[in-house]
Structures are given as structure tokens and as C-alpha cells.
């Protein structure tokens, strides 16, 4: 893992440079703190509110993770179903595109009507947002199994189910993981949007609610700290899924596929 540690340096150094130039630049330009808090102030605020941030991020993270697991399972199964029949694929695919393009903010209020306010709606929001990259990538993986190998199975008169289990599903694992990696970041966004619209916050809310309330309280540094926290959460998801997928593929001896989005 020393390679991946070394990979961390360039972005960290860039982040440091950006942070320092923002700190100095904002002062030099005389931008008042209520417009854009200094990075140092954001970090101080994050430190001061670390408990609230941790708690909110924990809630949001758990909802995003649950949604992500749901879409991994549901998306994987949906892709399997779609891979079996070209007619069904043609029928369902436009709906998938709908899911991919419809802004979650637009359907979030509907989710309240479907499942009511609370964590289930937040989880559903994370799930819906992260579903389509998993379905699209897994489906592509399932359909693009080596045609020569498909022929080999067919020459042995293997059933479609057998081809699916022994060839298509393992072949699709890299693409499935690529989809999962894209979905990981999206699931965090989906959870936050869900919290904006559909969460209950009487028992303390997630990071979305914290963003909203710190805007109302005009605590701009806390708004930025919360945004920073949600970015970190998304990044953590992305890196964790990336690491898992790296390990899984190495275990399976499959070359990793890199996606432009991922």
C-alpha cells in the first residue's frame, strides 16, 4: 500500500498550497469573513464543532452506506435481470436513463410521499442516486464477457444460467466495482439532498441539516466546515470502495479497469 500512500502526496500538497493561497489571497483582497471565511477559521470552527460534525457525518455516512449497499445489491440484481433478455433490456433502459438524468432534488419531495419523513427517505435518496452507475456498468460488464468464452460454453451446451454464474458474473466484477466507485461519492450527495428534504431532525440531523441550520444561523464558517466534512465523507467512501475493489480484483487476478469518471 506504499504506492497508494505516495499517490496521496500530490493532492495533499496541492490542497495545502490552495489553502494557503486562499488564506493569504482573501486577506490581501480584503474579502470580508462573512462572505468567505478563511480556511484557518473553517478548520478552527470544525475543531470547535467536531462533536456535532462527527455526529452529523456519522448519520449521513450510515444512511449513504446503507443506500450504497442497497443499490449495489439492487443494481447488481437489476443488471442481471436486464442481461438475460434483450427485450426487457430495451424496455427498461429508457427508465434507467430517466433515473440517471432526473435531478434527485426534483424527486426528493415525492420520496416523502412514498416512504414518509425520516431515515428511510434519506437512504432511498442515496440509493436512487447511486443506482444507475452500478446498473449501467454491471450490465455492460455482463454483456461484454469474452465472446470466445461464451462460444466455448455454448459448444459445451451450457445453460444460460451456467454461463451467467461461471462466466458473465465473474467477468462483470471489474465493471461492477467501477460502477460502485462512482456510486460511492454519489450516495453521499444523495443522502445529503435527502436530508434537505425528507429527514427528521428532532433527534439531531445529518450533515445536510447542519448545513441548512448553519446557513439560517449565518454561521458561514460552519457552513464551510460542514461542506468540507461532506466532501471528506464522499472522499472516504470513494477511497474505501477503491481500496476494496483493488483488493478484490487482485484476489481474482483481474486487471483493474479505470473509468474516466472514477
Amino acid at each position, binding site marked *: 500500500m506504499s504506492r497508494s500512500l505516495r499517490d496521496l502526496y500530490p493532492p495533499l500538497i496541492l490542497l495545502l498550497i490552495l489553502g494557503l493561497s486562499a488564506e493569504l489571497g482573501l486577506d490581501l483582497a480584503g*474579502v470580508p469573513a*462573512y462572505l468567505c471565511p478563511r480556511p484557518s477559521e473553517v478548520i478552527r470552527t470544525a475543531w470547535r464543532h467536531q462533536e456535532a460534525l462527527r455526529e452529523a457525518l456519522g448519520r449521513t455516512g450510515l444512511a449513504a452506506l446503507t443506500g450504497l449497499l442497497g443499490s449495489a445489491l439492487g443494481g447488481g440484481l437489476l443488471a442481471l435481470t436486464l442481461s438475460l433478455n434483450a427485450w426487457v433490456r430495451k424496455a427498461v433502459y429508457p427508465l434507467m436513463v430517466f433515473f440517471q438524468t432526473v435531478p434527485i432534488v426534483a424527486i426528493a419531495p415525492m420520496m416523502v410521499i412514498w416512504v414518509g419523513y425520516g431515515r428511510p427517505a434519506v437512504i432511498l435518496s442515496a440509493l436512487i442516486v447511486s443506482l444507475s452507475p452500478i446498473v449501467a456498468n454491471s450490465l455492460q460488464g455482463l454483456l461484454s464477457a469474452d465472446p470466445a468464452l461464451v462460444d466455448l460454453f455454448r459448444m459445451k451446451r451450457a445453460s444460460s444460467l451456467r454461463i451467467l454464474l461461471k462466466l458473465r458474473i465473474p467477468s462483470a466484477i471489474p465493471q461492477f466495482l467501477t460502477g460502485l466507485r462512482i456510486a460511492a461519492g454519489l450516495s453521499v450527495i444523495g443522502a445529503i439532498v435527502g436530508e434537505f428534504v425528507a429527514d427528521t431532525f428532532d433527534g439531531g440531523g445529518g450533515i445536510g441539516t447542519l448545513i441548512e441550520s448553519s446557513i*439560517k444561523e449565518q454561521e458561514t464558517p460552519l457552513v464551510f466546515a460542514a461542506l468540507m466534512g461532506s466532501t471528506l465523507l464522499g472522499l472516504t467512501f470513494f477511497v474505501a470502495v477503491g481500496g476494496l475493489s483493488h483488493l478484490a480484483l487482485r484476489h481474482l487476478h483481474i486487471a483493474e479497469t479505470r473509468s474516466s469518471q472514477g
Partner: protein
Amino acid sequence: MNRWFFVVGLLTLILTTGCDSNKEHESGQLRIQFDWVPEPEFGGYYAAELMGLFSARNLAVDLRPGAAGTPVIQMVASGQAELGVAGADDLLIAKSHGIDVVPVFAAFHDCPLGLMIHAERKINGVEDLFKNGTLAMTPGSAPTRFLEKRYGYHGVKLVPYGNNLATFMSDPLFGQQCFITSEPVAAERGGVKVRVILFKDLGYNPYAGVLFTRRAFLEKHPDEIRTLVAAVKEGWLAYQSDPEPAIARMMSLNSTMSLETFRTATQIQQDYLWPQAGGHETFGTMEASRWDSLSKTLNELGMTSAPTAIGSLP
């Protein structure tokens, strides 16, 4: 989705503000930034514009509609607009964060915000609303904090306030914050009898629709502001006696609202515009004692770091 817009708005502001936050209005124009689309709550301004009340006083006024999440206070403070319209509570909170804003005119003497519940809901007192059912409120807002302090949320499910009435309509135990001129009208039109409990009747009554500017600007242009306030007041009085021309103007800018809605809202808001006891001359004026008590309340709610004195028109 006010939150994203707010953050995007702030970032845009940072990028466009550049160095000098007290940049002068070189053209002599007075830009008034609203926090929402043209609606009856800004009726007086559009009436004044339409009747030439600004130009008659040699004022070049630019009325700027807002949208969800428009950071009005920050825009005025940073010189993107000379004046803005906001709630008294938001102004005091801004003030406690070091943004030096000064209120100059309060269109709404009484706060038109309240809780909307189903009329048939059986409650023995307001406190019952916080024991069960669902309540949609803006997280972190002063009224949300106020109700929490006064009643406590014991058993009620708190959910974010949004611009969607569907859940309210279908759930008799659902209550939500509302503008007296807006949601109750829509709900009744949708066939649900509602009851509104105003925040002011629960002890929370900030001025609303407050016209404000930044102190630096006021100190440089006191006469201009005074003249503007006079024109705005005259505009409001004109809107009260005949709102139709301004309504037509606002409808041309905001096609999402029907004529009927404009008229109903105009009618409802009348009761909130000026003190019932006072006459026309008291319209728009503010009492220092009410600012002081609001300031105390906000401080008790933990929304400001210390009781904040806010100056007013000299």
C-alpha cells in the same frame, strides 16, 4: 434547495466582489435586493416604481427580485446592492456576526409567519402541537429555536420545511410553518380547512420585510436614503388603496402566481402592514424597544453572541 443556492450565491458573490467591499454606487443607482420573486410582500416598491415616485425624487432605483437562497444581507454588505429586504431577526443575527447593517423601514409591523395546522385537529393548547404528529420547520431558524425553548419538541417529528404542500394535505397531524399570505390560502383552495397560529401570538414578533442598508452607505448618503424611504412609504400607501397596477406589473415579472392569488395575498397582508392603532404616518416606522426585546430573545436562543443593538435611520 435553498442551501445549495445560498452557497453558490455566496461563492458568486466572493468572485464578483473583488477587493473593495464598500464599493460605491458610481452611477448613483440605488439597487434594492429582494429575497424572493415579485409578490405582494414587495407590492409597495413596485407601486412606487410604476407611479414614478422614485424618479420624481431624482432617485434611480433598481428593484431586483431574488430567488430561493439569495444571500441578500451579504450582497448589501459587500456592495452588490445598496439596500435589501430581510427579516428583523436575520438582520440582528448578521449584526452579531459583524455585518454592519441598518434597518430603515419596516413594511410588516407584525410578523406574517406562523404555524399552519388542520382546522379539525383537536388540541387543548398550543403545547399539544409539540407532543405528537409532524411539524415542518426550517432547521436552525429563529422561530424553530424559539418554539423549542418555549415548548420543547416532545414527541413531535421535526422535518424540513419545503415548498410542498402534499404531505400537509394528506396528513391531519401534519403542521408546518407558513406565510399567512401563502400556504394557508393554497391549502384552503386545495380543500383543507386550516388554522394558523401566528408566531407573534406566541411571543415571537420580529419586524418583517425590513428595508435595510449598510452603515457605511447610510453615513455617506443619509438624505438619499431618507428620500427613498419617503418614496417607498408613499408607494405602499398607493398599493394599499389601489394594488391593481402594481399587481399587473408584478405578474408580468412572476408568471407562476395567478391574479387571484395576488389579490388574496394583498388583502391578507393588510392586517400586518402597520400598527392597528397608529395611522398612516406611523407606517414603516420601528420602535427601538421592539428591536431591543427581539435582540434579547435572539440572544437567549443562542442565535447571537450578545444582545445586539441595531441603529436606525438617524
